[in-house]
């Protein structure tokens, strides 16, 4: 199979719950071997979309094809190709990790050997703890066990819905390393949802941003987070007209906007030190300078809008 072979194809997908439109005319494709980041704020429609990919929620409209098969008519065949952890990995806590994996392995079809169970326990780093009851596990261990269950039948596609939720910083780092290893060493196609751009940036090669159920942008992470698109925000305190001064200087072409106390430039990351020097030379009293990626800034603006609505700001 070639790298460009589509493993997931979503076309015009919508879901409404009564009058509330959770997902609105969403279309995207995922290629084999992709680590595909699915980014959006809480309530953006990520989980609903992921549940539709898994047949847990019935779409109101649209088509989902996985490995060329329409999930509506071939659900069982499609699910054989998928391993998933949806939100928290809720497991049978009164059973051991081994029993949990073994039980779901039987449901996943085929003859899954004890050696394969040992192998997935090794991959997720739970060897030695497999016979402990799951109720004694930490959240991070439960997450890893959830991934072991998703991996046990060796699926082509792994769907991980907010896998770092509820983990401490060390757990997040371990989970990130595990996902990267699964993509690189195990060759899995992975869909990972998150509300953190930074997390997607570190893990995914392609991504989609969803907001209020609609697609905002989709593409290669490297292209979307191109260093040419850095936004540099400068705060200053001067009596003179700094905006006009900058417009007349070599930095004028990079100036996006300006006020009596702030300036915003759009430029490549490499130019930021020269800009700082240039502003100081021009007599601008800089109190703060901050660079953000334009996509990140856009994403943060979505967050701020939502926070403002919720009364946080």
């Amino acid at each position, binding site marked *: 199979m070639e790298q460009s072979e589509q493993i997931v194809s979503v076309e015009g997908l919508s879901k409404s719950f009564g009058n509330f439109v959770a997902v609105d005319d969403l279309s995207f494709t995922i290629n084999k071997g992709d680590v595909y980041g699915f980014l959006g704020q809480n309530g953006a429609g990520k989980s609903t979309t992921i549940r539709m990919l898994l047949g847990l929620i019935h779409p109101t409209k649209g088509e989902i094809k996985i490995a060329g098969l329409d999930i509506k008519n071939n659900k069982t065949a499609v699910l054989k190709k998928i391993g*998933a952890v949806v939100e928290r990995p809720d497991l049978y806590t009164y059973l051991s990790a081994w029993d949990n994996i073994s039980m779901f392995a039987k449901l996943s*079809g085929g003859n899954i050997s004890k050696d394969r169970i040992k192998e997935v326990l090794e991959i997720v780093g739970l060897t030695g703890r497999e016979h402990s009851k799951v109720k004694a596990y930490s959240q991070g261990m439960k997450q890893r066990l959830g991934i072991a269950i998703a991996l046990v039948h060796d699926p082509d596609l792994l769907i991980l819905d907010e896998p770092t939720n509820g983990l401490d910083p060390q757990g997040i780092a371990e989970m990130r390393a595990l996902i990267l290893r699964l993509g690189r060493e195990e060759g899995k196609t992975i869909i990972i949802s998150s509300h953190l751009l930074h997390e997607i940036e570190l893990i995914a090669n392609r991504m989609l941003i969803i907001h209020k159920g609609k697609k905002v942008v989709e593409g290669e992470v490297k292209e979307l987070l191109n260093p040419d698109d850095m936004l540099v925000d400068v705060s200053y305190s001067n009596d003179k007209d700094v905006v006009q001064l900058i417009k007349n200087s070599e930095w004028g072409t990079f100036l996006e906007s300006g006020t009596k106390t702030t300036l915003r430039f759009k430029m490549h990351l490499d130019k930021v030190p020269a800009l700082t020097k240039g502003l100081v030379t021009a007599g601008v009293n800089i109190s703060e300078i901050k660079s953000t990626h334009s996509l990140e800034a856009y994403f943060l603006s979505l967050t701020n809008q939502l926070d403002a609505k919720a009364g946080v700001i």
Partner: protein
Amino acid sequence: MLKLELYKIFSRPRTYISFAVITAFSLSIELAMLSGGDEYIGLALKMTGGQFDIGGKIINGYLITYLILQSLLIQVPLLIALVAGDVIAGEANKGTLRLLLTKPVSRTQIVLYKFASCVIYSVSLIVWLAIIGLGLSVLIFGAGDLINLKGNMFVVLLKDDVLWRYAAAFVFAAIAMTCVAALSVLFSALSDNAIGPIISTMAVIIVMMLFSNMNLPLFNIVKPYLFTTHMIGWKGFFEDPVPYSSIYKSAGVLILYIIGFVSTALFVFNRKDIKS
């Protein structure tokens, strides 16, 4: 998958509460009858208002079993609902249903296997009731003629004519309890929390039992269509002659209800969005 469902049911301590309740209740009645059984029978005979001169051993294992069955078969539905009401809703509540449904098993299979495991659990409860109720009672009190009251008449069944009736009654009780399990599974498919289906099942059974037992003209119209009216059909095996047509009719109604409840559960569950 059936093996897995049974493993889940029998791995949980809650499952054994039902067996413990049946054991405790049966042993209590057996002990009470051992210590004050003659007094109880004397009172019961007085209450009928007649003068009787009955020879032989009235208090025997068969009579005790009959008393246990009469009392306990009203409570057993609660014990069944405790487990059957939890099979789908309990998993939805804990989140494991979500994981289960991401595996390549159809929803129809999931409901049918869960229902089948509930049937096995219900039958095993009835078998346990037979062992503890009938087996232990006969062991303690010995076997004998069974005397029971029907209307104003006593029905006397000879010792050698009783055991097969119990076997048939337990089979009938298993059908009745399967009907309760099917109702619980339906409520379980409708709900995302485990308590709701258990309470709903018991509420339906209590209300229907009231309708079935109260002799009011309005209730009399609906009585023949209520499954609770037919759940006590096992008693027919202790009449002489046995009213087979009425027993078959009751079993038929219960089976129709089972089919109806399970089909509705399949319909609902296959269309349900899993948001839990």
